[in-house]
């Protein structure tokens, strides 16, 4: 049974950290479904949200334990699905000839998309939501072929009043 978990890691904002994480997953044969990383409110830290698929709980605990050994990773935890809020953004360029444009735009607005660019025969839109929401909305556009698409990968945060993981930069050199 495949086992999917969302990991939230607070890592040192430093060149090479992504390579260390990606290298570990490659080396040990773990599967990353998505990974997203960006600096946080504290410039010394990057937060990574990694969606990991493992064969079982044991492999998942190995992933966490092996990741914990990377010196640049300060905190790492599995987000509790019940308590987490997920968000992902996507940009999609749909094929849409001018005679169907109005119809398309109505559908896009009904689904809370923002229109970014209207070309001769395409419309580019963006949407933010949970990965499931994005999938669901996409399914409604079946009659408009997708020319190009990009998704950011999931980012997640705990739905609570306190930070999920505390930042502690005491031992950082840089």
């Amino acid at each position: 049974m495949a086992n999917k978990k969302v990991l939230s890691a607070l890592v040192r904002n430093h060149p090479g950290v992504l390579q260390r994480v990606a290298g570990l997953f490659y080396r040990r044969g773990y599967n990353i479904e998505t990974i997203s990383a960006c600096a946080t409110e504290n410039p010394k830290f990057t937060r990574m949200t990694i969606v990991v698929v493992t064969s079982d709980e044991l492999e998942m605990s190995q992933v966490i334990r092996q990741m914990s050994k990377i010196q640049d990773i300060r905190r790492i935890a599995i987000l509790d699905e019940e308590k987490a809020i997920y968000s992902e953004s996507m940009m999609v360029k749909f094929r849409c000839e001018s005679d169907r444009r109005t119809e398309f735009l109505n559908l896009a607005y009904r689904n809370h998309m923002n229109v970014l660019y209207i070309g001769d025969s395409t419309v580019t839109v963006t949407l933010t939501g949970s990965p499931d929401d994005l999938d669901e909305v996409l399914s409604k556009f079946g009659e408009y072929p997708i020319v190009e698409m990009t998704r950011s990968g999931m980012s997640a945060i705990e739905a609570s009043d306190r930070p999920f993981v505390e930042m502690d930069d005491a031992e950082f050199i840089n």
Partner: protein
Amino acid sequence: MKLNGSDIICEVLLEQGVDTVFGYPGGAVLNIYDALYKYSDRITHILTAHEQGASHAADGYARSTGKTGVVIATSGPGATNLVTGIATAMMDSIPMVAITGNVGTPALGKDSFQEVDITGVTMPITKHNFLVRDINTLAPILRKAFLIARSGRPGPVLVDVPKDITAKFAEFENETPKKPVKTEISSDDIAKAVKLINQAQRPMIYAGGGVIAANASDKLLELAEKADMPVSCSLMGLGSFPCDHRLYCGLIGMHGGYGSAMATGNCDLMLVVGARFSDRVAGDAKTFAHNAKIIHIDIDAAEFDKNVLVDLTIRGDAAQVLSKLVEKVAESKHTEWVDQIHAWDSEIHCSQQDGDNATPEAIFAQLNKLMGPDDILCTDVGQHQMWAGQMYHFRKPRTFVSSGGLGTMGYGMGASIGSQVGNPDKRVVLISGDGSFHMNLNELTTLASYDLPIVVLVMNNQVLGMVRQWQKLFYGNRFSHTDPCRKTDFVKLAEAFGVTGMRIEKADEIESVLQAAFDKHGPVVVDCRISKDINALPMIPPGAGADKIITEMN
């Protein structure tokens, strides 16, 4: 005070208690070597023939002394030549700091002469690595490198220092080295372990390199004696328990004894200390010690349930965990069980004779007479290494220096140099094979330059014996490239390097030649001619259990 980067490197080395480094100069480390010239009264630099030799020397120095080994190499090829040595140290959890030069920061990323992204290259084979881009971070990074190398599960750390950083000045103040923080040990886990040990009828201990890394051999002996638990060692654990003790069961795993293998299958409790259930020990991870409750003690939580699922894990320093266990376990006796294991051992016979010719068995028998309990045995990798594991009399920790995890042929020459430099008053013997020896025999020149009194015994069977043994067992005697038909005369070779060369062919020459080699008190190579059909036995084939043990071949 303001110091340049190279002086800062030397100052931090001294601050960290380093008085010996191994290395090889080059363009990018000219400034560092200029500082080493200045600091030569306080830091001894050992120049090897090749950076690989220096990396193994730093590793052998660390294993035999317990201190952190330090190696210095230049950028590009100097740095990449360290790779095998760093990977060897990583696999066996050896504390090492490698300092590499690199091209100046403005030239980084431009494919400059002798530039290589060594932090990228060594990312998977170091515990951590650093590229120093700012002179003000040099000292903190070096201190952190030493702290990481010796904290928790030790390992190699690489610090890449661009040439301009070694010349720039920064404010420097000496600091007292930070002590690694010890992990808190759960008293609940200790209580559970004590209960399991007290209940066991047929307990055993599987001891690994972690016992030696944690300096826990005394505690291991105390626990084994108090709870009357027999002890088997992984290759990395050899020396952690005295071989002449009634509770000692010898090597465990692929080339371990029948007693160890049968005990593994029949014990009702296995206490694993600082070991990681490698495939060379737990050939079949699913059935390993399947009748036993397993307690796993390790400093690295990532080793828990990685290869073999266990019943109880205790995270912590092996010496601390063992001393808590010693305090709490009940005294008991398992005489019948211990006798049974020794009886299993005597059920199989693997003695391999060869008429009046010298044999590994006879050579080790004589070596055991000549070597004192504190003397150091280094090995390369192959059949000779397994013969050492099976036949050498291990008595104390840090007296066996061998590449276990990575299985690095060519490791021994450098490792013996490091062991001898770190232990000038101890006898150092290197057991090698003609295959391994050919890989890094260039380091004979280092033995001669520094007059290191290392005795190198080359188990010369003219073939790549271990691979050939597998070709016999699993590849229908198709000896693909394991019989290289080399014409090297090791006696003449040694002499060309300025090292004494000797030869043993017949069994009756062993005693006198080894004695003469030991009496030289200088570097000696002994070409030990042995049959290519003496194998490393017993052997449990990969993935199999004790019932498949091989005791004779050919």
